């Protein structure tokens, strides 16, 4: 037995020989049709794959629905937080607005005092 690679194990050698013998023996078959066992096995594997891809497809669809509902929840939460934030902000702004009116009135009052004070002096 000729060996090109010294590290080539007996196990590897058996596998390679098996593959080559199998491919060579098949050459002795003159038929232009595939073997019955090959066809049956292939159909069975293809149908298994068909069911598997179908299940995966459904799972992906379900994952998408779950992702969308999670997204909706997140948007709702952001909307609630933003709503609360805006209401607080508007309240503060309203307070500032009433405060500014008071400040303006006080400023006008002080201004008047200064004016009258100036006249008296």
């Amino acid at each position, binding site marked *: 037995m000729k060996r090109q690679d010294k590290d080539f194990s007996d196990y590897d*050698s058996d596998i390679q020989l098996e593959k080559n013998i199998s491919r060579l023996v098949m*050459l002795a078959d003159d038929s*232009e*049709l595939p073997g019955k066992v090959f066809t049956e096995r292939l159909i069975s594997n293809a149908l298994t794959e*068909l069911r598997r891809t179908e299940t995966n497809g459904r799972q992906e669809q379900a994952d998408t629905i779950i992702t969308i509902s999670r997204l909706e929840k997140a948007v709702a939460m952001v909307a609630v937080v933003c709503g609360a934030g805006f209401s607080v902000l508007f309240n503060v702004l309203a307070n500032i607005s009433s405060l500014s009116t008071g400040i303006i009135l006080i400023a006008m009052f002080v201004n008047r005092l200064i004016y009258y004070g100036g006249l008296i002096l």
Partner: protein
Amino acid sequence: MKTGFRTRELEKVPDKLEQKSREKFAQGDAEVWREFLEREIPKIYNLFIKSWPNPSLAEELVQKTVFDAVRGRGSYDPARGGPEEWILGIARNNIRLEWRTRASRQSINVDISRYFETIDTKLLPDEVLEKEETAEIVRSALGKLESKEETVLKAVYIEGRPICDIARQMDITEKAVYSLLYRAKISLRQKLQKMIFQNELGQGS
């Protein structure tokens, strides 16, 4: 005998998928697919074997085509035609890919004897298997084996029968079948190497 069975099997199946079945096919209905594959696999195999006289490669390409079709069935549009034309398109595409792969490979030496020297360490190139000379030598070498050895090799590699089935038919244990198969492989390798060497000598003289 095998061909007769196959012919009968093919006759059972209707020639084309009916229009309403196309919808079911696109939806991945298992029964419609089974019927479709039973009818189309021999046609696809025939297409490959006519391109390259190499049964192992033909089986490999049929398998690839079928799985490409199953995984890519979403691309099938019933409005554009029958699934028969669609799967033949996939098969033709795989033929083009195979030609492209071969074009990028190193060309094969005409002398096949050096490939048989390394039969248990290197995979024989497809181009060597496709030579008429190789097929003739294999047929001749198989004919020179003991009858039991030839039977077991053909039952395993051509008919693809399970070992338990062969053991029952030959009225021996499964262990004995494995042992016989091993001896048959070694014997065939020796016969092939001897015949190819003689063939080479004959051509040289």
